[in-house]
């Protein structure tokens, strides 16, 4: 176990070193989330003004949705980019021939993603409070913790699937790292209630843990409390998705071993 922690710490530090020296990389952690917050925040203010107070809660809905979406998106990015980092630098074989186990690699990427998201959350919360008088903690209360963890886990599973695609198609699939989460955005009812979707799409949406979290977020804003179902159902779905995505990753890894793709990763 001690050795496993040493491996996890090694990979966590390997990813963290990248931010230590490079100002652009350090900025990269918060740049896009902050830009999104500014745009969505000002759009919300504008809508509020135009609607003359009829949509008083629009700013709360939209900023909450934007921050929650960012947790999911950054979590997916953390996993997929951690993996592809070693493909880009042609270091993947050096890593694969060490005693590092796949699960240790995944845990390290999850921890790295978690720390990154925590930093983003803090920055966004402070900015939203200063600019729009929006208090994330006051709005979501303690629900914020299980909801964020659910999004983190789902983002991680999507990140694993994305990494599996890179194992299969190499850097030709690189664009999917940025694209795959946006396949989920319209179905997850991020910025609008589930009821807006056509009935057949609602059925699909109910199969995604993210939908429950975004619906739950709006329920908390409206009613101030939340049924436990909004946390437990996505949690169980997350367990299912995590197992499935880990199995897909392992299967793709085995296939890459058989077809000799591991040694060619990053060379395409």
């Amino acid at each position, binding site marked *: 176990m001690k050795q496993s922690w040493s*491996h996890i710490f090694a990979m966590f*530090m*390997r990813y963290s070193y990248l931010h230590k020296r490079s100002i652009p990389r350090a900025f990269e952690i918060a740049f896009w989330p902050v830009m999104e917050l500014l745009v969505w925040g000002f759009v919300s203010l504008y809508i509020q003004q135009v609607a003359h107070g009829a949509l008083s809660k629009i700013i709360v809905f939209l900023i909450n949705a934007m921050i929650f979406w960012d947790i999911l998106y950054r979590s997916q990015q953390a996993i997929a980019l951690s993996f592809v980092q070693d493909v880009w630098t042609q270091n993947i074989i050096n890593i694969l021939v060490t005693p*590092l186990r796949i699960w240790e690699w995944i845990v390290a990427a999850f921890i790295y993603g978690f720390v990154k998201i925590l930093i983003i959350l803090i920055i966004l919360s402070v900015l939203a409070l200063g600019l729009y008088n929006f208090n994330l903690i006051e709005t979501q209360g303690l629900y914020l913790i299980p909801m964020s963890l659910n999004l983190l886990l789902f983002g991680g599973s999507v990140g694993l699937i994305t990494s599996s695609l890179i194992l299969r198609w190499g850097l030709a699939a690189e664009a999917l790292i940025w694209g795959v989460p946006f396949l989920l955005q319209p179905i997850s009812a991020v910025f609008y209630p589930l009821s807006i979707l056509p009935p057949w799409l609602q059925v699909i949406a109910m199969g995604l843990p993210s939908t429950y979290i975004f619906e739950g977020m709006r329920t908390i804003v409206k009613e101030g409390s939340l049924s436990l179902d909004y946390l437990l159902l996505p949690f169980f779905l997350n367990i299912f998705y995590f197992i499935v995505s880990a199995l897909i990753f392992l299967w793709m890894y085995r296939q890459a*071993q058989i077809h*000799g793709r591991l040694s060619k990763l990053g060379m395409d």
Partner: protein
Amino acid sequence: MSPLLPLIEIKDLCKQFPGTLALNHFNLTLQNGEIVGLLGPNGAGKTTAMHTLLGILTPTSGEVSVLGMSPFKERHVIAQNINFSSAYVQLPTNLTVMENLKTFARLYAVPNAKNKISDLLELFEISYLTKRLTGALSSGEKTRLNLCKCLLNDPQLLLLDEPTASLDPEIADTVRKILKKFNQEKNIGILYTSHNMPEIEQLCDRIVFIHQGRVLAEGTPKEVIQKFSTQNLEQVFIKIVRGEYQ
């Protein structure tokens, strides 16, 4: 692992890729403390054999044992006791020399890593590079850094794929001497590929010539040269590649 067991034992190994038989009933053994040169033209199957030994490529058929274990069932145990370097595999260019070595020291759970890293950097005469970004190193410096990484975990077995490919003759000579020293003092087994035939003659106890996935010749460099009635290994190489042999 029993000292009598070979470090590497490959029996009847075949690896079929679509349209190519990369390894064709390939056999190889490497004993404790032995340096074996795996020679052959590009595409002969050398890297395929190495990647199979490292457990990152599954064979189509045949038996592979490293340190008496299967690289597919007990890869993590084996990985702790072997290491690998290739002229074609890089360490992350966006990390410094020290960050890279610290990362791999942690991955190999190296005790007293700081001292170990410092000793190796000194041995390869690159102590002055610790804070330099790996991407800013010359290819010779990168190769020496790779070899430092290789020796971090005091391996019993080293798999080196053209490790001196980008070195100038003086540094290449230093590297060979260091490898020979480690081999003799610590009884490390080394599987070595290179296209530099004089280097192979100088360094290897035994060579295995491979062409189109098959072993064509095996023995000490002297024995192989005699067998092909040539002056040196370079001529053997040319004869084999051109098919000018019985």
